[in-house]
């Protein structure tokens, strides 16, 4: 029997998946017509993975509030769609492993320099080589910071702060990291020894897949007020670091998928997909998992902090730029779950918000934003594809009302890795980028083919849909000068 999903168009870029069957709330999808058509095609073609079904399944979970959301970069994930947001009542609701996924607190750090694009013209290639040597990336790469088991525990408790304490960064970095780089409630005893052992060699490594390091230039300022608050201007050289919690996060996910499967049975929560295993938020199992996610998140913050230090060392070597001149603009994750306050039907409620492939995007005035950004709201970092553009965006008041203050995280894949690898050659992708003046240093050419810019949706379209829906506002457009891939 084919599945049926009734979608009602609310506005140009907003759709309602009407409540049916066991759905406790409707689904709300912010996307353009092409994206919606793609999701419907997946259903019609009976694809084993379809994001509409995933939105519906999330809407069936106990304690979900208002609606199961999908943002314009939506595509099929595991349990939750990528680009999915689910907010749950603390008393009635559940915490869901698939709402966070494998790469806990995978995210982006944006660093700003006082340099102008022209300052790099003679040394770009040298800088690319130095970054390629300095930042461990790709399969089997090992970090420079080796920690004991006790030190790993400290890192899991303290996050980026631990790395700064070790001398890799400055106090000002911490102010400009989501949650100041340290999620509270992280108890390392709920993380398996195995997860920690897997991390021994991986602290301060970039990884592979869609992770990257890009030196970029600000090509366009769209929102001058917010750009001024963030210290961004046209022509400026910035750097984006996209990575997550590495093997530690992956192992936490693998461990808790098993543990939460038992919890789901114990609490008699019907499971519509194995990755939607969950436990009541206030149960022992729920609290343990949330604490483990806090550890994983702190590990990711620490990881990006360490890489930021390595980037600074490259800028110092090649451009004699002092470390303190390379400023953290912001660091924000796009796979996490957190307790937040939101207005629901006119009342402020404490909710557990899952964001899978989606960032927090709090609008103006929230105390969670750093003081210097509070008037405009904190930045959100939208990774584009390696040959095109990335965006700095910000949250809006409408986004607070409609999307629990959430933002898009990237372009979203359009082609599968297999199809991309068949269609493109790594070398051709590299030459095409070189013709556009972008230097690519990659550890895997196969990876380059799979990450070919055309394998992703057009980031402009995704940014446009989020803007049109009114949930996010673009601030600046960044274009890569050099790209380091795993």
């Amino acid at each position, binding site marked *: 029997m084919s599945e049926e999903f009734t979608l009602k168009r609310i506005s140009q870029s907003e759709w309602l998946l009407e409540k049916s069957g066991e759905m406790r709330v409707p689904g709300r999808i912010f996307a353009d017509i092409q994206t919606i058509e793609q999701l419907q095609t997946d259903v019609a073609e009976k694809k084993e993975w379809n994001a509409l079904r995933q939105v519906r399944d999330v809407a069936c979970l106990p304690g979900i509030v208002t609606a199961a959301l999908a943002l314009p970069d939506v595509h099929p994930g595991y349990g939750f769609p*990528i680009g999915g947001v689910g907010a749950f009542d603390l008393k009635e609701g559940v915490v869901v492993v698939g709402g966070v996924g*494998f790469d806990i607190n995978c995210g982006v750090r944006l660093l700003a320099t006082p340099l102008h694009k022209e300052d790099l013209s003679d040394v770009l290639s040298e800088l690319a080589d130095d970054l390629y040597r300095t930042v461990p990336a790709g399969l089997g790469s090992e970090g420079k910071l080796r920690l004991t088991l006790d030190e790993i525990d400290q890192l899991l408790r303290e996050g980026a702060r631990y790395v700064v304490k070790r001398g890799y960064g400055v106090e000002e970095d911490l102010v400009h990291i989501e949650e100041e780089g340290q999620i509270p409630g992280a108890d390392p005893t709920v993380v398996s020894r195995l997860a920690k052992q897997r991390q021994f060699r991986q602290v301060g490594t970039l990884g592979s897949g869609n992770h990257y390091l890009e030196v970029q230039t600000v090509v366009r300022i769209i929102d001058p007020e917010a750009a001024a608050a963030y210290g961004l201007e046209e022509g400026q050289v910035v750097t984006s670091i996209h990575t997550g919690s590495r093997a530690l996060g992956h192992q936490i996910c693998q461990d808790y998928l098993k543990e939460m499967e038992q919890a789901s049975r114990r609490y008699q929560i019907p499971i519509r997909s194995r990755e939607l295993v969950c436990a009541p938020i206030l149960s022992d199992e729920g609290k343990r998992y949330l604490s483990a996610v806090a550890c994983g998140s702190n590990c990711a913050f620490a990881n990006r902090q360490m890489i930021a230090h390595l980037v600074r060392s490259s800028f110092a070597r090649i451009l004699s730029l002092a470390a303190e001149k390379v400023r953290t603009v912001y660091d924000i994750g796009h796979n996490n779950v957190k307790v937040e306050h939101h207005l629901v039907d006119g009342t402020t409620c404490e909710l557990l918000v899952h964001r899978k492939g989606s960032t927090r995007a709090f609008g103006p005035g929230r105390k969670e934003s750093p003081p210097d950004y509070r008037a405009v709201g904190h930045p959100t970092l939208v990774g584009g594809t390696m040959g095109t553009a990335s965006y700095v965006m910000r949250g809006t008041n409408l986004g607070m009302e409609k999307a629990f203050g959430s933002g898009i995280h990237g372009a979203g894949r359009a082609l599968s890795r297999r199809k991309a690898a068949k269609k493109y050659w790594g070398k051709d992708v590299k030459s095409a980028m070189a013709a556009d003046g972008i230097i690519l240093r990659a550890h895997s050419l196969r990876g380059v083919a799979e990450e070919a810019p055309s394998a992703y949706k057009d980031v402009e379209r995704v940014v446009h849909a989020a803007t049109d829906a009114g949930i996010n506002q673009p601030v600046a457009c960044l274009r890569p000068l050099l790209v380091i891939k795993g």
Partner: protein
Amino acid sequence: MIMPFEYLDHTADVCLRGTGETVEEAFCEAARALFNLMIDLEQVAPKRSQRVSLFAERLELLLVEWLSELLVQKDLTGLFLSRFHVDIRQGKDGFHLEGEGWGEPLDPPRHRVKLEVKGVTYSGLHVAHKGKIWIAQCVVDI
């Protein structure tokens, strides 16, 4: 002729499928499919071996355990494996697996590395026989 292993389409990640005349062969091929995502298998010499012993209530879950354990061991020992042998025995409560893999530590640039696999998901999970052919498949997160 059937492909010993192959990859099926999945938008964000990869669905791998191992096949064989026995469930054990299908598990070995799924493991080869897993490592082939990370490295060229033909470049990996079977110099050192790695043993694993696992249990799961169902065959599908055993496949996730098997592939996850291989990923874990890769991180702990640094060994990349290219050949496998598996014995699966059905017990009272479920299935026991005794496995062995052969390979060597990563040695770039002699080894051409590909992508890292983050984890083994329960998505697209399927272990069954169709006629004489066993299939062992699941999606892995890249």
